């Protein structure tokens, strides 16, 4: 090998590339569960009017993403709190989006109408988005900053005060 320095370099470089790819992949696959600091996976879901919306639409402003279903009592209980916070902060740029856990549209519409929810509701189908997010409990709420990075993940119902303090820190971070 004494004469073929370039071959040595080449082989070590290939090793580094292949090895780096293999090890890098192991990091990617261990990220099934989202953690604060991650960016959420993209989605494309229909709203109650049948129009499609993507995650990218909400970039540039803080976002509260709430996964909920009518079959989950704490989800039902926290809806009015989310609505109140939406009204309180929307003029400061806060966006609230509720993603329903793959229920029929008419069920969702009835519930939304009864509670008086004003923020957009998107309909997940076939549990695709909840699986992509690695959801384990309901409700789960993601507090996402204006750069699209998750700051906090809360499993379980939230009160108005709990949402309020988190929104403040989201807006402060802007």
């Amino acid at each position, binding site marked *: 090998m*004494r004469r073929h320095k370039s071959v*040595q370099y080449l082989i070590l470089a290939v090793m580094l590339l292949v090895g780096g790819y293999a090890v890098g992949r*192991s990091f990617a696959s*261990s990220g099934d569960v989202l953690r604060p600091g991650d960016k959420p996976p993209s989605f494309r879901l*229909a709203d109650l009017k049948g129009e499609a919306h993507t995650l990218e639409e909400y970039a540039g402003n803080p976002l509260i993403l709430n996964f909920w279903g009518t*079959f989950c009592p704490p989800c039902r209980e926290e809806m009015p709190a989310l609505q109140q916070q939406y009204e309180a902060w929307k003029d400061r740029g806060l966006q609230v989006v509720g993603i329903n856990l793959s229920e*029929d549209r*008419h069920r969702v519409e009835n519930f939304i109408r009864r509670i008086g929810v004003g923020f957009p509701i998107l309909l997940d189908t076939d549990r695709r988005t909840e699986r992509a997010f690695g959801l384990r409990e309901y409700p789960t709420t993601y507090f996402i900053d204006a750069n699209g990075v998750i700051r906090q993940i809360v499993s379980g119902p939230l009160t108005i005060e709990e949402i309020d303090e988190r929104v403040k820190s989201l807006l402060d971070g802007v």
Partner: protein
Amino acid sequence: MALIQNTKCECGHQNPAGTVLCEACGKPLDEELAASDSVLEMRYDGMARRSQKPKPNLIDRVWNFFSSVKVAVWLIIITLIAAALGTVFPQESAFVNLTDPAAYYRETYGTAGAVYYALGLTRTFESWWFITLLVMIGASLVICSLDRVLPLYRALTRQQVRKHLQFITRQQVVYVGPIEGDPEAWTAKFAEVLRRRRFKVRTDGTALLAEKNRFSRWGPYVLHIGLIVFLLAVLTRGIPGWYMDEYVGLDDGELEQIPRTNYFVKSLGFSVELYSDEEMPEHLKGELRPKQFTTRAVLYECVAWCDDVTRQPELREVAAHDIQVNSPLSYKGLRLYQYDFAEQPRLISVRPTLIDKRTGRSYGPFELPMRHPPLTYSVGPFTLELRDSFPEFSLDENGEPVTLSREPNAPAFVFVIKGPGLPEDGVPYLYFPREVDRQRFGQDRINGEAAELFDIRVESMEDVEFSTYTSYLNVRVDRGMPYVWTGAAISMIGLLMGIYWNHRRIWLRIDDGVLSLGAHTNKNTYGLRAEVAAALAKAGIVVDAKSLDNRRKES
């Protein structure tokens, strides 16, 4: 100014630094080695394996690290121990639906489980450090082989016929003795004897080199190439679409999308066949053991509106198969195996009749699916509008109707019936398809006056479609397998080459009527002794094979 010191042999050949035996004549170059009479170390025929650099830089140090066999052995031992640890408790990847791994391991295996999880051993084979070990073994495979195969190739293809006397008399198998007659004629005759024993012979007057099965020396390197191909093939699992190991659970008649693909699979029906008592041994009679279970499955491919969430995707049937254990549905590398089933009775759909109690006439039946029911139904002169539905009906603490889950375990439907003789806004009617729910929640009491106007009921069991079992299918894609097999085949060939055959060489020279013969092999020296003795016997020299063995003479 040359930093590399070369060593010139007495035969005139210039050898690179680090050479043990002269590349041309085979004379030991080191003073001490030349003085002793031990059997010569014939690794790489004594060629220098690596250049001796006075100041190895980083690249050289990395290269030397990976080209060390000792390092490779340690890497293998560490990987072995790590892999063994990974088999102590079931890995996370073995579970279909593990929602809280930390809790599971703690609860099932106690402290040992909690420690196991904390150390990351529940994901041993996917962890970064295990993959790093494998990458290092791969690097070692490549660099060890390269560092050795090139000198070996150079050594074996540039062999000189006439070797130094010390080289010959210090081989593993040696014969020295007088020869009668013309030496050149004797050499030529002996060459013929060896050729008949399938040696390739080159002569140089009174010197001879006979060689057999050189190809077997490449065996270990072919083996290593095979292993590298194997490792790279396993790496291809990372390419999107090349590997899948997912589970899909289907009730009878249910259609589900296979995650991350454009394929949908539908179960037309699942059935279980049990062993009859006659087929069972004594101690098992009376037990329910499945003999065979089958999912009649259909595979669809999405051809339009696949990514459009606002529309239903358009599907085209591409394959159908009765999936049984070890008999998967196979389509373009996608395989659906029968994995498991669970008894989970579920209502799929009903076909109820609408009875107008005022006239006594009945209309319908109409199709009412439990999942994704349509919003309007035309039944005779009436129209039923679906206002609300509850897959698992219950009443909350305020007496308000809610659903307990998303599964149709206790379905209820709120219709508004419009039609002749009815108010314009319609008559609300709550309908429970299951009789037990109807009684439990008092359907007629809830409906009040509407219960006296109408009845919605299923007339016979024929109009009820239910699923008794949920069938679980394992979806597999593994496009890297052919390459894995290729790597394995190459490894096997290399193993055979290296182990089944051995590389034999015989050198001889006749000086003043004295024959000096030396022979070397990489394996099975006993066999070589016997072969040399037999060849010599054919040439008229009878010796005992054991007396040819030079290795015993070491003290």
